[in-house]
């Protein structure tokens, strides 16, 4: 899809995010963390997240041909759906709009007409179609402060409408949250649709599922390399649990098939190195490996289970699961000094840490007293423990989106294990995929995968 994707981008103008918008977003963060510090255990059944109302009128057309109308309709719908996926926006109903975008200048809208219908943000688009070539201008405005936040001009083949729209949505998220890349990301997961557990990938929104492994054995715990080109996973392809490091585009595979189990890969951000739990010494210990599967050095030294490494964005610290305290808990190890501190103290069974790409929080799976597994988030300093899922089956395998705005996880809330997404605060939980078999162990890519 992307090979033929050539379009030019011209920056129309760029201004810094307005203080008002930024303040409203920041207040969500600070409110939540302030509340978290007041209680040891916070349930956010009602996270009270304020969604930003945004108006996205159908793009203005040039010559008005039926095919141009179709592209305009499809493009504006795609833009709405893509932004709606994040849960940070309330997409306003077009039926309420007072202004006919066809009769206005998309570069200088009448802001009062948009604020009247409740829009705080406005996206205008203009599209022209000539011989399957698109010329498209997209702009994001702060309607209250009457200013343009970003504007881009795209040109390319009509088949590349989707990546163009995604690119602009990345611009919007970059302006509003400071991080972009969500809409270029993919999700790896395990599915048993063929009768055996194989590794699959799909787009961030569940589109285009694709089967990666086909060895008809058991394949588990996929983990993306930081550049999104490789997936490391545990496989029984050769009869026992080995570690495969698999290039998604050319299917090259590096194999770690030492004695015992080779499991739970976790990559070091910004490198082609990963850590995994290997038990060839007789005891599961975490080792640092090259991306080609060669051992660099041993990271843990402790009798009993040590698994599931997940690194801080700077690679200086590693969260992992250890049973050294008598029950599985999350620990953090300083990579330079080797010093280890226990992070989790609530509950007897805390596993699957995933360090936020922003660096400040760790999500993990904990066993509640009632007997269900649920997703929790905790500050890396041990403060601000929040339960993100509850009372809906078992919820496991949480993984951050690359901009840390969303979390993907698996849940048995409908009986069969499926893949779900939610916001970083646990809001708007919904199913991502409807595929045959069971889906589990989703992992969000952190870099570009295209």
């Amino acid at each position: 899809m992307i090979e033929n994707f050539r379009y030019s981008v011209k920056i129309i103008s760029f201004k810094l995010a307005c203080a008002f918008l930024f303040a409203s977003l920041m207040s969500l963060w600070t409110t939540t963390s302030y509340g978290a510090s007041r209680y040891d255990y916070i349930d956010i059944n009602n996270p009270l997240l304020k969604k930003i109302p945004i108006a996205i009128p159908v793009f203005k057309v040039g010559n008005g041909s039926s095919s141009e109308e179709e592209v305009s309709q499809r493009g504006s719908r795609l833009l709405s759906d893509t932004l709606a996926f994040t849960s940070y926006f309330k997409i306003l109903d077009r039926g309420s709009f007072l202004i006919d975008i066809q009769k206005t200048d998309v570069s200088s809208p009448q802001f009062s007409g948009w604020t009247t219908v409740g829009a705080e943000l406005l996206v205008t688009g203009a599209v022209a179609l000539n011989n399957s070539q698109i010329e498209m201008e997209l702009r994001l405005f702060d309607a209250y402060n009457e200013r343009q936040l970003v504007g881009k001009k795209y040109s390319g083949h009509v088949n590349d409408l989707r990546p163009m729209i995604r690119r602009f949505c990345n611009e919007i998220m970059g302006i509003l949250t400071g991080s972009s890349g969500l809409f270029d990301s993919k999700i790896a997961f395990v599915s048993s649709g063929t009768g055996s557990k194989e590794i699959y990938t799909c787009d961030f929104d569940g589109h285009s599922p694709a089967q990666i492994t086909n060895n008809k054995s058991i394949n588990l715990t996929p983990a993306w390399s930081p550049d999104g080109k490789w997936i490391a996973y545990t496989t029984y392809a050769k009869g026992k649990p080995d570690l495969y490091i698999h290039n998604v585009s050319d299917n090259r595979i590096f194999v770690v098939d030492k004695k015992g189990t080779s499991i739970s890969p976790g990559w070091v951000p910004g490198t082609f190195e990963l850590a995994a739990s290997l038990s060839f010494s007789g005891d599961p210990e975490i080792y640092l490996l090259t991306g080609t599967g060669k051992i660099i050095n041993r990271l843990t030294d402790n009798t009993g289970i040590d698994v599931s490494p997940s690194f801080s964005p700077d690679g200086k610290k590693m969260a992992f699961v250890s049973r050294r305290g008598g029950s599985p808990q999350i620990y953090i190890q300083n990579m330079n000094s080797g010093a280890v501190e226990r992070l989790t103290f609530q509950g007897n069974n805390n596993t699957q840490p995933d360090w936020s790409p922003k660096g400040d929080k760790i999500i993990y799976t904990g066993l509640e007293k009632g007997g269900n597994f649920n997703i929790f988030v905790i500050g890396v300093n041990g403060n601000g423990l929040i339960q993100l899922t509850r009372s809906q089956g078992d919820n496991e395998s949480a993984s951050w989106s690359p901009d840390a705005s969303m979390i993907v996880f698996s849940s048995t809330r409908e009986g069969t294990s499926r893949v779900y997404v939610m916001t970083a605060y646990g809001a708007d939980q919904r199913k991502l995929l409807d595929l045959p078999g069971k889906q589990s162990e989703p992992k969000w890519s952190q870099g570009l995968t295209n």
Partner: protein
Amino acid sequence: MKRKYLVILAMLLVVPGLLLTASCAKKVAEKPAAAVAKAAEAAKAPAAPAPAMTAPVVDTSKADELAARERFQKQDVNFAFDSSVLDATAQAILKNKADWMKKNPTAAVTIEGHCDERGTVAYNLALGERRAESAKAFLVNLGVPAARMTTISFGKEKPLDPAKTEEAYAKNRRARFVLK
């Protein structure tokens, strides 16, 4: 009469021998080939009632051997939730297994470690391995050579009973013994 007695004795040895595997093959081979041939011939004739003294003794020991072998493979060692500790029941079962391994010095076994469906995948892979390894270590301490045992963990991937009940979970938390 003496000849008939010999034939029946040969049958009693041959027939169970055919049912059993390699461990009994040696015993069968020791019998003179002629006796085996005669036994085959005699099989066509209506079988006379076997002398009460001999038959049950031979039968029982073979059956016992079979049963012991079957028990070795079928009797799992079970564990508590999130534990690889061997309780008294588990230790008693493992003592039987050690005895069997010593009586059958050519037998080699794969010890599989399994978990119930609760808990996360990677941790259960590690826990399953600890279970298999703790069973193996116990047998080594009882004098079974480590070289005759290998371990593999299947984590929670191969439950014995897929039901979501405490009873099923208890069955699924197990070390399973598979003869090679």
